[in-house]
């Protein structure tokens, strides 16, 4: 466990040793603010004390940009630069490396997710009080967001451990997460079995419940299964080097 945390800490810190963390955090908040207050008349148009738009924009932003950027280098860069050999030949288990890197990247993504908590706090608690906000859906929304972030970081880690190239890793993760997000919208245009499957795997459909204050065990299990599946596959991908 200590070793996992050491790897995670190093990974998390290294984001801040390069401009990456600052760029990601600043631009995500700029983008979020723009979407939240300006897009289609923004928040004011809704005319209700709700945080629902936040839970629509944050996952989309995460899926589109933040997660691919944060996860693209996790394994790909280590492999390309050869530092993986240095890391693995320290007394760490392969699973420690995978979990450490996962937690490190999830740490940065969580900073972005939890950073958006400033919205409900500033708008409805202090210094402003724009109305009586029902905290239940906000709480469940954040639980959903964290589960979603956990699953998408695991997807990014898996893609990164399958390639040596950061840019390929970025585009594939971007595409896969985008597909998972929009498969719900596509399903709406279709009908029958295909639509059912697309709805089933859609991250957006899964997030709907959380937004409305509903924590459905099926959704929780769905996100956790994706996470575990991707982590185990990443572990296998890392282990494969031994026999290749």
């Amino acid at each position, binding site marked *: 466990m200590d070793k996992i945390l050491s790897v995670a800490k190093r990974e998390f810190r*290294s984001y801040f040793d390069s401009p990456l963390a600052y760029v990601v955090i600043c631009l995500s908040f700029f983008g979020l603010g723009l979407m939240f207050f300006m897009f289609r008349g923004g928040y004011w148009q809704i005319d209700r004390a709700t945080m629902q738009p936040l839970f629509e924009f944050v996952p989309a932003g995460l899926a589109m940009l933040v997660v691919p950027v944060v996860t693209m280098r996790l394994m790909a860069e280590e492999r390309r*630069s050869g530092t993986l050999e240095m890391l693995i030949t320290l007394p760490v288990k392969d699973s420690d490396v995978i979990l450490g890197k996962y937690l490190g990247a999830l740490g940065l993504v969580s900073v972005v997710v939890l950073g958006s908590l400033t919205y409900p706090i500033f708008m409805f608690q202090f210094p402003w009080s724009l109305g009586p906000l029902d905290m239940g859906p906000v709480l469940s929304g954040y639980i959903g967001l964290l589960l979603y972030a956990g699953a998408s970081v695991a997807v990014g880690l898996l893609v990164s451990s399958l390639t040596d190239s950061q840019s390929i890793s970025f585009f594939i993760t971007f595409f896969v997460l985008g597909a998972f997000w929009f498969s719900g919208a596509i399903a709406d245009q279709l009908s029958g079995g295909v639509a059912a499957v697309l709805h089933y795997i859609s991250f957006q459909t899964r997030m709907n419940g959380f937004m409305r204050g509903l924590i459905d065990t099926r959704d929780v299990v769905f996100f956790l299964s994706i996470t575990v599946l991707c982590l185990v596959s990443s572990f296998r991908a890392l282990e494969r080097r031994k*026999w290749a």
Partner: protein
Amino acid sequence: MGLMSTDVMIHASDLSKRFGAVRALDKVSFEVKRGEVVGFLGPNGAGKSTTMRILTCFIAPSSGTALVNGVDVFDDPLAVRKAIGYLPQRAPLYTDMSVRDYLSFVGEIRGLGPDKFKSALTRVIEVCGLAQVLQKDIGTLSHGYRQRVGLGQALLHDPEILILDEPTADLDPNEKAEVIRYIQDIGKDRTVLLSTHNLSEVEQACARAIIVSKGRVVADGQLDEIRAKTGAVRYTLTVDEKGAAGRAAPSFAELEGALVGLTGVRKVRELPNDESAHRVELSGSKDGDLRAELFRLAVDKGWTLLELHRDAQSLDAVFRDLTRSDEALDRGRTLEQDDDEDEDEGTDSDDADQDEEKKG
């Protein structure tokens, strides 16, 4: 394996590794005992790095076993890695970290407590000369310093066994000399396996060498034994180009003719030298000593003998013989000799011309 003495720190037996259709290692076996500094030699692609990666449990052998510090690499990779300090080729480090942060990361993973880490850091800084660069980012350091940082991380936990993959590649001569000096220092009380294709380094730092070629061990033993392996002795002879008292200066052709006539001389080769003297390398059989006869010959012919030296064949030559033999077999005849003869003929005639001019 319990019977095996604990003094064997690295025991590789019949290690083979295939990458697809390519056979990178073919039944490599060797042992390294406690306190030995062993040079692991071979041309690029001979399987040096593959062997080291197997020993550090980075990759697994296709067949065969390896014991490091008495532990099988299959059974307990973590215990193996704990006993080893490893420096991979080209010292791949996290370029965005400072030297200090990097070393403390390694210390954490190695499970050194704060006190232990502090003393280890002090020791490593001193041994590897890192005091100047401790706060700098690794990405800004020269190759030489990176290599030292790499060596530093390998030494941090004071390991029993050090495995260093080409620690001197990419360094300038001063840095090379320094790294070799570190290794000599370190090797006094540790087991070191050091790969390189630079032979003079091996001669400086190691008492024993293992030579691999095309995935096989082609020689393993003390350096003297390996040198003696081809059964040849080398003589170096320097003759002044000016003739002695009133006699004509010898041309290389004359020298060669006279030397080849001598019984026991196998091969004559001119060494590069300045205008004032001929330097000649002879190889003779290991058993006899031709020095007396060479001296008598020089007196007879009136050559001014400036130098006469006899030693075992150079490691360089042995290395070439051993690692090129496969290629030579393919072509039916040693390439090397052909080349040499051509060269000799060339220089020959040049010399003869010059001599004639002088006479005229």
